[in-house]
């Protein structure tokens, strides 16, 4: 089934949990097992991704794992909504984090959000650095391109 506007608006990530929730939660995890259990858990909160959107156009090439991203611009509120999917759990968790930071923002607010800084803060930057072939770097680029196109309208 294709994604409806409601599917996009129903994506809770960004509202619940908020970025503050995640930062607060992450702060108290001290070993790698707890940190990654937290990330894997976040990945489980990604809303279902429509099967028919898993097409080349929405696909982000990564050597290690596959990522899909689709967007919907909500005219009434002027906000951009996103859905992301991946076949790898850690990538799903990191994608959820990206959604929590970017989903449901105006294109301008989205473009003003520094994802690299956020991931530096969480000590997860290496996962989105250009040296990792997991597709997240390209995905962030793709989301920013979409936002830039709407911001220019």
């Amino acid at each position, binding site marked *: 089934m294709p994604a409806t506007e409601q599917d996009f608006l129903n994506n809770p990530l960004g509202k619940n949990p908020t970025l503050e929730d995640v930062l607060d939660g992450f702060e108290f995890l001290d070993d*790698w097992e707890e940190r*990654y259990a937290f990330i894997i858990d976040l990945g489980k909160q990604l809303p279902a991704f429509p099967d028919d959107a898993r097409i080349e156009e929405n696909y982000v090439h990564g*050597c*290690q*794992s*596959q990522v899909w991203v689709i967007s919907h611009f909500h005219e009434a509120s002027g906000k951009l909504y996103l859905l992301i999917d991946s*076949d790898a759990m*850690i*990538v799903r968790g990191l994608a959820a984090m990206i959604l929590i930071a970017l989903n449901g923002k105006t294109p301008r607010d989205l473009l003003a959000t520094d994802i690299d800084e956020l991931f530096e803060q969480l000590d997860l930057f290496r996962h989105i650095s250009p040296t990792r*072939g997991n597709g997240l770097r390209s995905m962030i680029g793709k989301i920013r391109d979409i936002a830039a196109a709407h911001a220019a309208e």
Partner: protein
Amino acid sequence: MNDLSMASTATQKAFDVQAIRRDFPILSQQVNGKPLVYLDNGASAQKPRSVLDAMDRYYREMHSNVHRGAHTLGDRATAAFEGARETVRSFLNAGSTREIIWTKGTTEAINLVANGLAPKLKAGDEILVSHMEHHANIVPWQMIAERTGAKVVPIQVTPAGELDLESFDRLLSDRTRVLAITHVSNVLGTINPVNELVGKAKARGVITLLDGAQAVPHFQPDVQALDCDFYVFSSHKLFGPTGIGVLYGKAALLEDMPPYQGGGEMIERVSFERTTWNVLPYKFEAGTPAIAEAVGLGAAIDYLNGLDRPAMEAAENALMVRANQLVETVPGMSIIGTAKQKVPVMSFKIEGLHPSDVGTLLDQQGIAIRTGHHCAMPLMDFYGVPGTARASFAFYNTLDEVEQLFTALQKIQRLFA
């Protein structure tokens, strides 16, 4: 010390993996707060100190351009460079250093051969590869096929990861011009029965190339016994530096092939009317070569020659045996590639876990493996997986490291439970 006790000391050294590990400076570091366990040797192997020293000494004491004559440094550099070529010749048991061409690596060597054979190919001809090839032994042939109208035909593999010899017998035909096949699979570790394949191909006058990239780190091939026309490998997987590799080719075929690149060194005489080629091997070595890297590769082979090879192979085999025993300690884990003849390479999947997650979480525990398609997408399609996790062992790995890998995998599995 008498001869006998010296010999036993030498043997002991070869068996002493801890002593061997001290020869590899990179192995003693910590990664993510844990001692590094390097199990990505199939992607690239680490270098012994003697390789680093040889390259350092080359730059400090003898660097200059090679084959340019006129001064002492030039003589020293040329002697070191050509000495390394002789070391490689001896390693492969090739008949002559004329048959040893320096390339950037396996990939360039295969491209060189594919381009060199192109004039012999025409529409309807077939190039036989296998379903388990690295992309480097598929794509250059596809590019030549595109140019010439020839066709690239893959030999099937069995579910265990062995070549399907019936498929080979069926596909080897009067149309076959080239058989280009891997000696050892980078994903599966399978050692292919190349003697038989080459023998059958030669009987039909088919030109044969063996991709030895994954074979030479584990055992020493004899190109005269194999009787293949070409044998290629990379230095960096053989504990030598990156940026250099080897093409062995039979002199008669190399003589017959056009040069790959034009430039300095590869010419005999240049004029605007007519340029003539240099003799072998220089005809295929345009431009200033990777001199220090050649010297480094020579040092890597010297290092290997100083080890007790049978003991080393036995030690590697013990790693594989231990790994196979431990598979059942990780529920849902299965090995991809269970050929009878294997080098210590273990591709695996764990039910419910994505290889990329496995790789990320092993890295957190200081363990380096490779995940993904391993530049062998047709093989991934055959097994119906997006990729695998692959632990590839070298002689400097220990049984303890194998056990650490499995302990780490159990931990990862608990994390996802």
